[in-house]
Structures are given as C-alpha cells and as structure tokens.
C-alpha cells in the first residue's frame, strides 16, 4: 500500500501556516496596505531566460501561469497608486528540489514612496514579527552590499570581475567548476554566490544583500552607489543560506523596460529558447506613469520552512509535487 495520498506536512505545520497568513494580513492591515487579487493566467510571460513559464490554452489562445504577480500589480499601482499586497500561487517550470516546488505561494507587496532601504526595513519588521510569533530566536539582521559581500568572502569586486577572475577565485577556494560554465561573468557570480558567499551568512539570522550588478537588474532602477558605481537598486533576503525574498526600487522608465525585455528575448534566442510574448499592458501602464515605489516578493513556503525549522519543502507543503 502506498501512502502517497497522505499529506507530507504535519498538522502542526498546517496550523503554523494558517497562523502565519493571519499574522501577515494583520501586519498589512495595521500598515494600511490593501490586499488585492490579480489573475494567475496571463496572455504574456516573463522574458527572464532563467525562468520558465507553464503554458496552457483557452480554446485556441495561448496562456501562461504567472511566475510572479508583478506585472498585474504594477498595472494596479499605475491606475490607483495604493500600497498593495497579494498572497497568491506562482508557477515556475523546471524548478524542483528540496527548496524548489514548481507551484509555490508568494507574498508580494508594493510601497509607493518607499525607497529600497525603507522597504528592507519593513520586510525585516515583518519577518522578525513572524519569527517571534513562532518562537524563533533571531540572532542578527545583517545588511551588506553585494560588492562588500563578494569582497569579504571572495576578495573580488563583482562589478568589474571577469569570468577568468571568478574562475581563479573558484580554484583558490577549491570550488569545482560546473560542466558548461564558461565565460559568462554573471553565471560565475551566481555560482560563487551559492558556493562561497551564502555560506558566510549567519546561519540563524537574516541577511540582506543589496546593490546588485547592473547586469542583474531585472526590473530594478539603476543608480550610483557611494563609490560612484552604477548598480541595480535590487535586494534579496536570506535566512542562513535560504533565499527568501527579492525586491526592487522599481524601474519606472518605459523605454528602458522595453529595451530590457528585448535584450532578454535576444538572450533567450541565443540560448535556443523561444522568445517570450512581451507584456504590452505593463509597458502601457509604465507609460501612463508608475508612482515612485519599491516592491518585494517573499516566498512563503520557504519562510514557513524557516519558521517550522524544517529542511525541505516536503515537510511544509500539504501535497508537494511528488504527491499531486
């Protein structure tokens, strides 16, 4: 007899999830952030070559499941200008592992008038409140720039480092070179992040990394940091080595946004992938005018893992991918 009909998460974890959702809604209610719902289906999809969208059909029309609710939420921001949050499912094809499930729950919120640092503070307040409510003793909340993190852990400047320099750094630190990793500096930086930088994070604390390289700006604004380097106003939050959230001081420039979509589509083509359908509605919303704002997406299943002191999503999800 197989027990695969059974949930893989315990009753206690189910209760902890319900408590977490209640606490999140209370937090945003107190902070005057409006809960919204936007569609999971979309006629367009992300151009990011590192994300794969699920596709489906309504009659003859191709549709995609969202990889995050970002585009629709920005259309709401452009139309109404309210601070908004959403708790919804997001979907990413080809992502399955101890800390990845192709279908997952995301909390995403936008704060008009906030810069990246103000939003990082609000996020820190939220996760510390949730940690406290589940009896988790948080030792530290550290904030460190991407450049400082690489400099301290690897001795390289990530804003100028070449693929060769990264390769030498990997050799010096006895880190293997993955098959297929060649001359792309950003891919090397991603690899060093997982192998060399993340392991230096406080194991039982929160770590913010901010000011990402320009080449990894996604939908973030660019600005000059205090050394005069052009960086992306993007941040990530980690608990130990678990990545929890990604946020931006949002790009407002329609022209720049279109160029980034088109560049990513060219990268997709170069990688032998199909270019994505660009979201013209988002571009029109930007054209109409997005308020100056920052936004962040927080993976709630991963956060629940932290709150429940679990090692894998299997312990957190009622029915993980292997049981659907």
């Amino acid at each position: 007899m197989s027990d695969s009909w059974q949930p893989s998460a315990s009753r206690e974890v189910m209760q902890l999830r319900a408590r977490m959702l209640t606490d999140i809604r209370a937090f945003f209610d107190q902070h005057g952030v409006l809960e919204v719902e936007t569609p999971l289906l979309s006629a367009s999809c992300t151009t990011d070559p590192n994300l794969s969208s699920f596709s489906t059909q309504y009659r003859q029309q191709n549709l995609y499941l969202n990889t995050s609710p970002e585009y629709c939420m920005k259309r709401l921001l452009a139309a109404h200008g309210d601070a908004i949050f959403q708790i919804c499912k997001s979907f990413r094809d080809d992502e399955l592992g101890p800390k990845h499930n192709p279908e997952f729950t995301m909390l995403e919120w936008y704060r008009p008038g906030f810069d990246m640092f103000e939003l990082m503070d609000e996020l820190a307040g939220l996760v510390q409140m949730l940690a406290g409510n589940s009896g988790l003793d948080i030792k530290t909340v550290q904030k460190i720039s991407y450049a400082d993190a690489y400099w301290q852990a690897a001795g390289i400047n990530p804003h100028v480092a070449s693929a060769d320099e990264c390769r030498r750094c990997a050799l010096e630190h006895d880190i293997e070179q993955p098959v297929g990793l060649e001359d792309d500096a950003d891919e090397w930086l991603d690899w060093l992040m997982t192998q060399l930088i993340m392991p230096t994070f406080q194991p039982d604390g929160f770590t913010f990394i901010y000011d990402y390289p320009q080449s990894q700006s996604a939908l973030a604004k660019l600005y000059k940091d205090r050394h005069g380097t052009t960086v992306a106003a993007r941040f990530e939050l980690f608990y130990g080595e678990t990545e929890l959230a990604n946020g931006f001081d949002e790009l407002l420039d329609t022209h720049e946004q279109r160029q980034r979509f088109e560049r990513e589509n060219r990268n997709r083509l170069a990688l032998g992938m199909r270019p994505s359908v660009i979201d013209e509605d988002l571009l029109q919303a930007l054209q109409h005018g997005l308020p100056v704002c920052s936004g962040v997406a927080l993976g709630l299943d991963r956060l629940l893992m932290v709150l429940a002191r679990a090692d894998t999503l299997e312990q957190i999800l009622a029915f993980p991918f292997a049981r659907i």
Partner: protein
Amino acid sequence: MASYNTNAFKNGLKIMLDGDPCSITENILVKPGKGQAFNRVKVKNLKTGRTLERTFKATESVEAADVEDIDVEFLYTDGEHWHFMEPETFEQHAADSVAVGDTAKWIKGQEVCVMTLWDGAPLSITPPNFVELAVTRTDPGLKGDTAQGGSKPATLETGTEVKVPLFIDEGDVLKIDTRNGEYVSRA
C-alpha cells in the same frame, strides 16, 4: 549519440561521465531566484561502484549511457566466464570475473540474477537477495543446541565460507542474505 538535458535528470538515469557509465543517485537544483541554475548530482560509477559528485550548468546536455537491466538465469561457469541465459529468449551472455565480481560467491546454477548491460555487454551481475546453498564442510553440529549463541565457519557448495550457528551440519541447506553475506536460517 543520445543525450540528456539536465532538466531530464532524475534518480536512476544512466549517463556517461569521464568515459564510464554512471547512474544518478541524487539530483539537487542549485538556483538563485533570478540567476543561473545548476544541477548538482551524485552518481554511482557502474563499473567501479564508486560514488562521485559533479555539477552541471542547467540546460547542458550530457551523453546518455546505453545501459539496461535484464533478468538472467545462471547456467554454469567454465572457470573463465560465467554463462547466463535470458529465460524468455534463451539468449546467452558470458560475463567475465570483473563483471561477476562477488556475485560468484553466491550462485551455483539456476538462480535468477539481474544483469546490467552496457552497450550490450555485461557490466555487472546482481544476485538474488536470498540464495539457498548446501553446506559441504563444517565441524559436527551440537545436537539440541538451537538457541544458544556462538558460531562456527561453514563452507558452502560454491566454496564460500560463512559463519553459521553451532547446530548446523554438513548437508544442511541454508538461506543466505547475499547483501551482507550472512546466514538467515535453514532452508
């Protein structure tokens, strides 16, 4: 030549690494949220049995190993080769001592084994988990001693020596667990 993309990786998939056929035993996705994904895999080298780790950039393709498992019945050994037969097709395969390895200690004939073929040639033989073999030589059994501890060596009809309880006699047929080489019971 057949190949697999990293997104086809799963446990049990057979791939070529460093010229040897390997079987994936663990596949972990390493992926920053907005960055390049990597697959860290543990594989078992099917020739040496050794486990090794390797990381691939996601979307890389890796040569497939032409490896398959078939059920075969052990027929006989001529001292140099061990001869097996597929029960359905009567096709015979001769395996050398490298491929047979420790399995030779447990098979006398007619056992159904799993033969792993690589490019159609025998790579390894896995015996049944339990085999029944007669004792050809051991010290005389102690009558009535079926509960006491203590053991003694006994030689089986395949020439293999195992530890058995004191009450076992020559001619007894024993059930042996081939995974740890231990006596289980009288057959």
